[in-house]
């Protein structure tokens, strides 16, 4: 079964502290994994994808196939990082369609001053 698990509903840290948002997945093939972010009153948008291996706004995420994880990390959190973060997997839908995203339940990150 295809599944994305984000164990933390809420993560609260102080400004300047490291942050790690956890994501584990279940997928039988080679997954495409993403992190999407939704800032207050804005639409959902892509933060980063595993195939790019890039750092966006100081965030990085490494795909660990052995642990089936794709945790999002940032060494020094900023107040503007406060948002809802969703881990997503691109796979095959139950209806047979391809290209849709399977989302985790999301983690709300709150960065306090």
């Amino acid at each position, binding site marked *: 079964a295809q599944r994305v698990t984000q164990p933390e509903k809420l993560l609260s840290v102080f400004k300047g502290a490291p942050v790690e948002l956890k994501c584990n997945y279940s997928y039988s093939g080679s997954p*495409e994994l993403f992190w999407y972010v939704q800032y207050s009153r804005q639409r959902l948008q892509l933060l980063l994808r595993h195939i790019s291996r890039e750092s966006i706004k100081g965030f990085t995420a490494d795909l660990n196939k052995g642990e089936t994880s794709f945790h999002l990390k940032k060494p020094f959190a900023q107040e503007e990082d406060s948002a809802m973060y969703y881990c997503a997997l691109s796979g095959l839908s139950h209806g047979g369609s391809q290209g849709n*995203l399977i989302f985790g339940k999301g983690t709300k990150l709150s960065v306090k001053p």
Partner: protein
Amino acid sequence: SAVISQKPSRDICQRGTSLTIQCQVDSQVTMMFWYRQQPGQSLTLIATANQGSEATYESGFVIDKFPISRPNLTFSTLTVSNMSPEDSSIYLCSVRGHGVAEAFFGQGTRLTVV
């Protein structure tokens, strides 16, 4: 990139009525999807909107309740039929181009059924 215009942005509807949500994209895209996000929950795929043919529905979603149209590559509608309070949710349109990994989202339609 793709810019999606979704409307209405919100509505309050009486139970038993229907609401049609529109999704307009500024460029031709291969894939269009409709998601639902219930309060406190994640995004759940309702269906894939197929151009010129019937949508592909996910388990738990049926055409009679959520009819979808996609007359061309840039436009789709989702209708929530015979609404009940359990249909209160945010409905999101999403698009993804062929061979392009990034998905783009509309701003969502916040539906409240009373």
